[in-house]
């Protein structure tokens, strides 16, 4: 199942796409938004990157960079959950109906650890303690490069344009990529 299909089927996705109730309007007026990756459809509450790899103008590219620095958090959060909750290291072996509650519980335990573990360490087993497989079966499911196409071009999002202008106003370009040996030069 594709990310955007699953998202549209979720409560939050339906709410954010419709953006019709008073809370959604309040958020839009406050210019708040949520950051997703390029698998999702743009809307007034969902900020997604500009599509296409090259050929973006420099401010759209800069916006993509700033927006991705927000998305890093969810990628890292997934990494932390999977690292901590070893039950996710292998295919979940239980009846289909039980899967959602188990996954939610894993997320809740992760949150509890984040909030109350004063050591701030994700305690995991050492390399010899368990059957941890580096080729973990749980993988990030996002970040498919989506080419600029007619469907993408039709997606109007004032939000994305406004945020791009904000980046431009702040004058923040994507930092230059330093080569691996740049410390020599």
């Amino acid at each position, binding site marked *: 199942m594709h990310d955007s299909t699953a998202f549209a089927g979720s409560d939050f996705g339906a709410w954010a796409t419709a953006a019709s109730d008073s809370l959604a309007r309040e958020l839009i007026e406050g210019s708040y938004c949520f950051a997703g990756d390029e698998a999702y459809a743009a809307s007034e509450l969902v900020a997604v990157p500009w599509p296409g790899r090259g050929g973006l103008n420099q401010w759209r590219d800069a916006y993509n960079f700033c927006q991705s620095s927000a998305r890093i958090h969810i990628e890292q959060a997934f990494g932390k959950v999977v690292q901590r909750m070893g039950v996710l290291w292998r295919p979940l072996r239980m009846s289909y109906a039980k899967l959602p509650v188990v996954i939610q519980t894993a997320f809740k335990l992760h*949150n509890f650890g984040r909030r109350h573990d004063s050591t701030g360490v994700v305690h995991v087993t050492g390399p010899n303690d368990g059957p941890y497989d580096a080729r973990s079966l749980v993988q990030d499911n996002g970040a498919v490069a989506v080419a600029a196409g007619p469907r993408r071009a039709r997606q109007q999002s004032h939000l994305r344009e406004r945020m791009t202008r904000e980046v431009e106003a702040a004058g923040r370009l994507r930092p230059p990529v330093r080569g691996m040996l740049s410390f020599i030069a």
Partner: protein
Amino acid sequence: MSFWHDARDQLAVNHAAAAAYTYTSGVLGSYRSPSPNNPASFRAVRISYGDCFARAMRMSEGCFFKLVDVLRPHLPVGGISPELRVSMGLWYYGGGSYLDVAAVHRVSHSTFDNSVWEFTDAVSSTKNMDITMPIDDPQWRARTAALFQQRGDSPLNNILGAFDGIAIAQEPPTARDVSFVADHMSRKGFFAINTQAMCDANYEIT
């Protein structure tokens, strides 16, 4: 040098204590799984994990006891102690094998299984562990957006959350459970359940 001796002595004491406990409880000599009526005490389990308790439980000891206190009202009364239920549940979610967990806690496999589900239910019914986003709270909005801006050193100050999907591997679902099994093959090439999640700048799922 003396440090190592001390550590080893302590380890020997721990092992001896655990072994003595096991022995006097009369489990040795039986190849059957231990009686569910005679589970280990939490003290014995704690001793047997030694320094590795935090690693096994995936959280510090202080955090563990906090979790026990939070879940206590929602766990069944009587039978296995809340500490044991929580440690079994956490070790299962941490990736432990049911064989090992049941052996250390000296319960039968079915007791372990029930206990994990009771633990899961307790977590589900604990209100302040719910996955929530206080989206209608203006203070929360301002705080979260500011933290995103600060963490990313970003000019954008209006981001309330970042979301993404993750493919969590599952055993192939049965045709009895789902209408079309092939739908559940992910594009990564394994059977998976697509999970959408959103988090704040503190890596907490919201």
